[in-house]
């Protein structure tokens, strides 16, 4: 099957505004200037998923112009990371996209490992995959809860956050913290997998499909939900590609594109899962893609747990003393280990000179990082490719015939996290 299915066109031609592709301006031939009311929406508005500000031109209830203003959560992560050693820098990426916290950490660690040409043990690979898929479910639950809440399905929020808490409990068990775990370490994992994780993760995998059935029972038979989401916020496959979209937004527009299948990283080529693709390009199909992805993620977690259980007693981190901290108990008996520990903690390890770009499929799409190293212990340049930043570029193109009430549904379906957008 072709990657882009053009047999079912969502609409004719392109809806990307011109000349500015990310800002829709009212057409004076259609709407007289005097009829337009300009509304400032956000940045402190509960429906904007954080601190997004939209300047909306309204003709009655109809949105005729829109432009997004971002930057309210700009924290200078990239600049800060240039001042920290590679080793300390691992702490920051999780804070960038705080809803799918594990992915930026993963992509940063993978990029450093690519520069170091470091092999990591298979146990670490499979555990990274299991945790990442758990975070994908977590992120989609937050999407589902908040975006349904915003268009009136208030109870969804309580149900999704019930299961979200179970995922965070698993993270607390493995890493000691519920979010921003810093569990992925260059070379593998920071700690071994604790006893009891497998059993709890299995229990979660057993419970979660039933929970998804519940969500679907609440929404898919709900006439209000269907009417609020179907045919709203259309984006065609060609427009989505031209606007650089990725992840669920792209797959809901009929593009069969998932980096886990197309450019397999970790061990995604060894697990069995499907990539859901829908062809409507509307808010509803983006919701469908995410629901199906949660089910697929559960399958991946279950397969990873099966494989991990066979790896009891195997190392969880590479045995490269120039990069990886020595085991704690060796510090009391081995002078070399003590020196290595001291060197890595104070000076940091060196990363060979070069530039790499690594991308993974995060819940929001292609999450990438561009790293430049000059051969020293600190990164020369860190640049995140933020999927939320790119998703918000599509707001103007999705706004054809949208009413002010649907605006919130469209923004919610693009699932932008402002920490990721502004970095």
């Amino acid at each position, binding site marked *: 099957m*072709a*990657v*882009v299915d053009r047999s079912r066109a969502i609409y004719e031609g392109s809806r*990307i505004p011109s*000349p*500015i*592709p*990310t*800002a829709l301006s009212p057409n004076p031939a259609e709407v007289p200037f005097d009829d337009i009311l300009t509304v400032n929406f956000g940045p402190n508005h509960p429906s904007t998923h954080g601190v997004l500000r939209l300047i909306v031109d309204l003709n009655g209830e109809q949105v005729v112009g829109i432009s997004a203003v*971002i*930057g309210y959560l*700009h924290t*200078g992560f*990239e*600049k800060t990371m*240039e*001042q920290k050693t590679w080793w300390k820098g691992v702490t920051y990426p999780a804070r960038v996209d705080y809803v799918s916290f594990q992915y930026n950490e993963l992509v940063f660690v993978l990029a450093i490992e*690519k*520069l170091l*040409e470091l092999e990591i043990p298979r146990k670490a690979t499979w555990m990274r995959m299991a945790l990442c898929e758990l975070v994908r479910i977590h992120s989609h639950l937050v999407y589902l809860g908040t975006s349904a809440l915003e268009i009136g399905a208030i109870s969804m929020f309580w149900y999704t956050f019930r299961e979200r808490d179970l995922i965070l409990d698993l993270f607390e068990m493995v890493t000691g913290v519920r979010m921003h775990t810093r569990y992925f370490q260059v070379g593998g994992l920071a700690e071994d997998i604790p006893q009891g994780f497998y059993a709890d993760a299995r229990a979660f995998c057993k419970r979660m499909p039933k929970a998804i059935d519940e969500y679907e029972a609440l929404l898919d038979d709900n006439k209000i939900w269907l009417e609020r989401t179907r045919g709203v916020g259309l984006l065609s496959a060609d427009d989505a*590609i*031209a*606007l*650089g979209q*990725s992840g669920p937004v792209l797959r809901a527009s009929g*593009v069969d*594109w998932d980096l886990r299948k*197309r*450019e397999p990283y970790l061990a995604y080529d060894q697990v069995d899962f499907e990539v859901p693709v829908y062809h409507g390009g509307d808010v509803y199909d983006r919701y469908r893609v995410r629901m199906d992805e949660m089910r697929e993620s559960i399958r991946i977690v279950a397969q990873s747990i099966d494989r991990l259980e066979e790896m009891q007693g195997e190392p969880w981190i590479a045995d490269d003393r120039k990069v990886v901290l020595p085991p704690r108990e060796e510090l009391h008996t081995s002078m070399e280990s003590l020196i290595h520990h001291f060197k890595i903690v*104070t*000076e940091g390890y*060196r990363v060979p*000179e*070069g*530039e*790499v*770009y690594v*991308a993974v499929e995060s819940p929001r799409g*292609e999450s*990438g990082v*561009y790293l*430049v190293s*000059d*051969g*020293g*212990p*600190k990164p*020369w*340049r860190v*640049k995140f*490719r933020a999927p939320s*930043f*790119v998703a*918000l*570029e599509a707001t103007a193109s999705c706004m054809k015939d949208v009413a002010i009430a649907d605006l919130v549904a469209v923004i919610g379906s693009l699932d932008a996290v402002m920490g990721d957008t*502004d*970095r």
Partner: protein
Amino acid sequence: MAYEGVPGLVETREAFGETTLVVDPARLVEAATHLRDDAGFNLLADIAAADYLGWAELGVAGYIGTAGGRDLNAPGSQGFARRPLPKPKRFSLSYHLLRVSDDPARIRLQVWLDDGEAVASVVPVWPTADWHEREAYDMMGIPFEGHPNLRRILMDDDWEGHPLRKDYPIGGEPVRFSGEE
């Protein structure tokens, strides 16, 4: 090589399994159009600007090491094992391209620029470049010619300086709202 026909190609580099095409900035749009239409790179994933001011020199961006070895006055610092290779100009702009098709591929299209040197906008080629170019302008001060809306995107409209440049001070930013306004 498959990319010999790219207009204005200066250099092709292969490193870490990634291909970098360095092109002449004056022919960037030509090269971008060629890569999109003839090589199928239909998705622009990212535009990453990097500032190489002080690259391979001492005492910038947290480096207090010396080329020869450890600086005794700065504990915890150490010099380079070897000096990094020099760069042609101060700024690099890397366009990370992706081919969304049955034959996926990635490529890095790169141009090198001096301070204040303008480069043509690729918004007509890939509309997604709009915000990426605004970010590169905001953070690094690279002017893009022909961009429809070149304004700051992450910082305030009246912000001074470009924060990700290597000569932008870290810490000690000037205090605003000091009563002198």
